[in-house]
């Protein structure tokens, strides 16, 4: 079976077909890692590039990411059995006082599409929770999302909390969301700002290397 079939259906966002093809591939004895990387993640990589280039938009990304996630869930046990490890680990959340989650969810999906394990802290996340999670779970990256100018200032508190906890040098702090800018990122001492979820995932991979 050609893994491109799976990749194509991820691009098309066909969840049911992706699941059926993943099962078929497993039944044929194809290694889970191959299915994941050459099928699911390869398809999502195409979607990510198209998203960066404004060829597809949030709806298409969500649908494709859902197909990928559902397919990947079927491989989890096999991947664990074979000792496959993620490329890196990140925790992500929308900052305290902010309940918007779509941006955070998109970034999470794109990070996972790059093989990064993501701990989703949800919304309204305190700086202490970000830092504690990163510390306890050995995360290489903290990803902070905010949709409001009134809440994005909390990102600065996350940076300070990481410094106070003594983990600032061992964790990268990425920030994003509609009102967030490169200038703001520099001002609060975060490591990186990206304007879209696909770029965030690309950068996160480099941080995990």
């Amino acid at each position, binding site marked *: 079976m050609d893994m491109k079939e799976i990749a194509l259906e991820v691009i098309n966002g066909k969840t049911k077909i992706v699941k059926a093809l993943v099962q078929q591939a497993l039944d044929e004895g194809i290694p889970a890692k191959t299915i994941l990387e050459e099928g699911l993640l390869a398809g999502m990589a195409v979607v990510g590039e198209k998203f960066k280039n404004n060829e597809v938009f949030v709806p298409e990304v*969500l649908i494709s990411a859902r197909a990928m996630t559902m397919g990947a869930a079927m491989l989890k046990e096999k991947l664990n059995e074979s000792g496959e490890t993620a490329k890196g680990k990140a925790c992500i959340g929308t900052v305290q*006082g902010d309940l918007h989650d*779509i941006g955070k969810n998109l970034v999470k999906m794109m990070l996972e599409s790059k093989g990064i394990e993501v701990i989703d802290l949800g919304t309204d996340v305190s700086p202490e929770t970000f830092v504690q999670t990163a510390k306890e779970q050995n995360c290489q990256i903290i990803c902070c999302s905010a949709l409001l*100018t*009134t809440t994005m200032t909390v990102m600065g508190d996350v940076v300070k909390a990481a410094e106070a906890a003594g983990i600032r040098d061992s964790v990268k702090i990425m920030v994003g969301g509609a*009102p967030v800018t490169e200038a703001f990122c520099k001002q609060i001492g975060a490591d990186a700002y990206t304007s879209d979820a696909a770029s965030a995932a690309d950068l996160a991979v480099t941080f995990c290397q």
Partner: protein
Amino acid sequence: MMTPRERILAVYNGQKPDRVPYMLDLSHYYLHKFQLPWELGSGYPKADTGLMDFNRKMGAAFYCPQQAHFWNVEYANDVKSSSATRVVNGVPEIYWRFDTPIGSIERIRVWEPSSYSWAIKKWGITNEKDLEVLTYAMASRRYTPIPQNYEEWANYIGEDGLVYMNTAYSAIGYLMNYWMGVENTIYASYDFEDELQECVTQINNNILEMVEMMASEFSAPVIIMGDNFSSDVQSPSFFDCWSKDYYKKAYDIIHSHGKKVAVHVDGKLKGAIKMMKDIGVDCIDAVTPGSVGGCTPAEARAEAGNDLILSGGIPNELWYDYSPMSSFENAVKEWLALKDISPALIAAAGDQVPIGALEERILRMGELVEEYGYY
């Protein structure tokens, strides 16, 4: 010298005013500044003269009667619509609920003091059955206009502003912003497309009745619509499928009554401007260049062409002290420079002045418009 109202009307009528109009939505800023309650559930039955006076004090024309009560809504006898504020574990929340013969749905917002806003706590629709309940309820809505309430606002602000009328969201807007959220609405468009289409058709047809009422029964020269548009969320293909027909019909209704229509695009602009331009909108409201809009003022103007009004210009982050004053001033000047390309231009915020903004910047914007905004 023209009045603020005359300037705004001139722009909408395709004429060149003496100066770029300057108007601001200060509603949220004002509520927060004076710690006034935001009656999201019940709205405001009387004209908010305090808000309008505040606009006057800040030197910015008034245009946005948030939560104004311009019509009564009734449902069929077998639909019960209820909404109330309650306190749960010490935190205020508002619920909106429909009880119908085919089921009930309820959505909840919770008060978030740090953003001085009502945040989504619980979406009301999670499956096709819930969607059918919303369809049933919304399709039975009937509207009774209260034009005197609009006149109360318009008479009070007089020449110091132009009171827009706000329509409801489109069906997709309702679902994305109120009842399902963006993600679930998008999944629904793939998973149960037929049920969603039925819902969208019914709700849109009902809201078009509201639009007809607004255009025919009220003296408001400008009607504003919009689903908090962002072209990356309601992409051109998604818009074509789910919303374009509704918007085209709404614009045609409004124009048939000799009125103008603005659409609120407070997210990504590329593609969204063209989408709306192609179906005949008069004004893109809440233009937010920079990271939110994803384009520069010049790029927005290039996509709009010279006839489509662009209203907005100053992103939220520039109103705060973590952005240098020079950045704020440059943004205002860059926006005002568009007047050299076309007079189809209004200076405003993208999309409203945020809570906690520096008051000196509101006043400074007025000074800059006065200095750089004359033709």
